[in-house]
């Protein structure tokens, strides 16, 4: 089931001089000691379990120092039972790299990865069709797979993907353009990576800061309370009028506080910060701080529609109460209606189901115990997506598509 993804990354790192020379030698010696042939994939597969049965366990990351910028690869497993690790790894990514085996073609994993990548909103994709040496470097085979996978991606409404024919073990089209595949006119993998665009933080959007906590430390001035959180969208200035949802407390920003930093008059998305207010109003952690003058306000509701991906060991059951966590807020929630269930590998859809199993995605209606402050996923990511906790584990991830 290994499409050579680990070999590809291992080769890419080695060929760009990103692996300490000592490390390659060390692993070669260890392989010799265990009577095993050296594989570039071993550079990634740090865990002993993998070296034993040749599969990747959980998530490992490595950094490629490129010419102009660094790339952090989060290597995620390609096996069914590790889907949860894959989603977790993919959840922090801004672009994706998928590896398909030229000989085996598009299998269950490749479909599932494609679905997850589109569901997680990752818009930039490179697809490497690997092991081209085993199909005689055939152009027609490459074009056939490219057409098939493009069709799949189009169904998932993902528009842009770059396809590259490679042979990772031989280093073809990894760093340098391949000499055997002269029919391919596109970039090699390293060049294709440099073409990824870095996503920008939404500074011009309506201001959203989920309140993580309110601090009043012992030796502070008696009434000094600090509202703490990370700004997820927009920008704010000292003197701005603000409002907290859902309990509608209103006040004005008195100061922007940061340890070991000069005072600031404004701050924008991405920063973890604290504020003092004038006057101080009672704020409950979990509320969302917004700016009065932004026209687009978040919704306050107890029911919405969402796209849900289920990963829990036990199936999601309609009507059962789970814990919902959205931004800095937690409340109880239950699925009141399962509208449509999709198998993430075959992409077959089912209606009339009342349960959602692991590795399935569902369009459903959710009702919460307490009020939830949210935006549609298309408007704001931080307040548009949530997780469901079953017992002690995060079992599902969802994106809000409509307020009910």
């Amino acid at each position: 089931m290994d499409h050579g993804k680990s070999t590809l990354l291992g080769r890419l790192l080695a060929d760009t001089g990103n692996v300490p020379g000592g490390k390659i030698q060390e692993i070669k010696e260890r392989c010799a000691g265990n009577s095993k042939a050296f594989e570039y994939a071993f550079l990634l597969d740090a865990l002993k379990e993998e070296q034993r049965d040749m599969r990747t366990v959980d998530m490992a990351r490595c950094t490629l120092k490129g010419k102009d910028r660094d790339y952090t690869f989060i290597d995620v497993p390609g096996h069914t039972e590790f889907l949860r690790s894959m989603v977790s790894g993919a959840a922090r990514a801004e672009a994706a790299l998928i590896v398909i085996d030229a000989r085996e073609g598009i299998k269950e994993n490749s479909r599932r990865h494609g679905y997850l990548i589109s569901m997680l909103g990752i818009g930039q994709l490179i697809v490497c069709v690997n092991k081209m040496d085993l199909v005689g470097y055939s152009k027609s085979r490459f074009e056939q797979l490219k057409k098939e996978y493009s069709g799949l991606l189009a169904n998932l409404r993902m528009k842009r993907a770059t396809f590259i024919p490679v042979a990772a073990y031989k280093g073809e089209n990894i760093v340098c353009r391949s000499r055997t595949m002269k029919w391919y006119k596109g970039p090699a993998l390293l060049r294709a990576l440099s073409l990824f665009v870095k996503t920008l933080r939404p500074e011009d959007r309506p201001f959203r800061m989920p309140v993580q906590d309110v601090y009043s430390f012992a030796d502070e001035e008696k009434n000094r309370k600090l509202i703490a959180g990370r700004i997820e969208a927009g920008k704010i200035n000292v003197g701005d009028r603000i409002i907290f949802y859902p309990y509608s407390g209103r006040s004005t920003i008195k100061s922007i506080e940061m340890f070991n930093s000069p005072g600031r008059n404004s701050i924008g998305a991405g920063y973890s910060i604290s504020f003092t207010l004038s006057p101080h109003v009672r704020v409950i952690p979990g509320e969302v701080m917004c700016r009065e003058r932004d026209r687009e306000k978040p919704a306050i509701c107890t029911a919405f529609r969402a796209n849900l991906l289920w990963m829990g060991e036990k199936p999601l059951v309609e009507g059962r109460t789970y814990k919902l966590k959205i931004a800095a807020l937690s409340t109880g929630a239950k699925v009141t209606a399962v509208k449509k269930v999709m198998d993430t590998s075959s992409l077959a859809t089912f209606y009339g189901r009342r349960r959602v199993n692991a590795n399935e995605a569902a369009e459903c209606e959710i009702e919460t115990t307490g009020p939830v402050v949210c935006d549609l996923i298309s408007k704001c990511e931080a307040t548009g997506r949530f997780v469901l906790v079953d017992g002690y584990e995060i079992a599902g991830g969802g994106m809000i598509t409509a307020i009910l």
Partner: protein
Amino acid sequence: MDHLETIESQSIYILRTAYREFKDLCMLWSIGKDSTVLLWLVRKAFLGHVPMPILHIDTSYKIPEMIRYRDKLAKDLKLTMMYGQNREALKLQRTFYHKKADRITCCKLLKTEAFVKTLSGEWPRYKLDLATGKYKADSDRTPFTGVILGIRADEEGSRSKERYFSARDGKSRWHVGQQPPELWDQFKTDFAPGSHVRIHPLLDWTELNIWQYIEREKIPVTPLYFDSGSGKRYRSLGCFPCSFPIISKAKNARDIINELSTGKLSNVAERSGRAQDRDDGGGLETLRRNGYM
């Protein structure tokens, strides 16, 4: 926002989440550069304050200068400073230094066992009395349910498989294949009684980032990291019988940054001076599955 500001913001976000969700929270401090940056980030998150106890697992083999640095910082910042120790093993001299244990067993006894048992309260914590400057056994033996550690994903193989919030079962075992997803900055903050969660705010930080941050914020670190004239310095600081210096003339953070960026050290792994990593079959994985940091 530059890269350093991005990872700083993420670390603060993680620390604030931990403080909010875990009633019995502590931070492990090894006096090294990473946990010192972590302490600084705690002060960033809580506006100069350190609102949780700081725990040092004292193997008694740290270079004495580091212990002096520890106690001075504790007094200056008025920290709730505690240490835990495997006094039994030290009394019996079951250590590598005394040649009565190999490196792995020594780490297991002096670090892992001490860590796990101090965390749970089975063994006492020795708390610094800021008035007298002396340590005394603390009567409070409540188990810590959350512990903040400064490990980074790029340090060595098994640490790169970690999560920000990583559960340990009742026996502090790490089931690496069963880790929960950390979807969209939502972390595992619910856990069964009797287990604990480890919080790793520095996971995305590289060795280079650590030194860039130390330089930018002017964070005081122990001078053992710099060449004081001998042409050698410590790149990684553990116990003195198992930590070896490297050849380097770097005298300050800027020199180290140059050394790391221009590739003088790019051919050498950061922990290459740490003998116990080699002894564990190339990596700390066996130790870590059983509760090591």
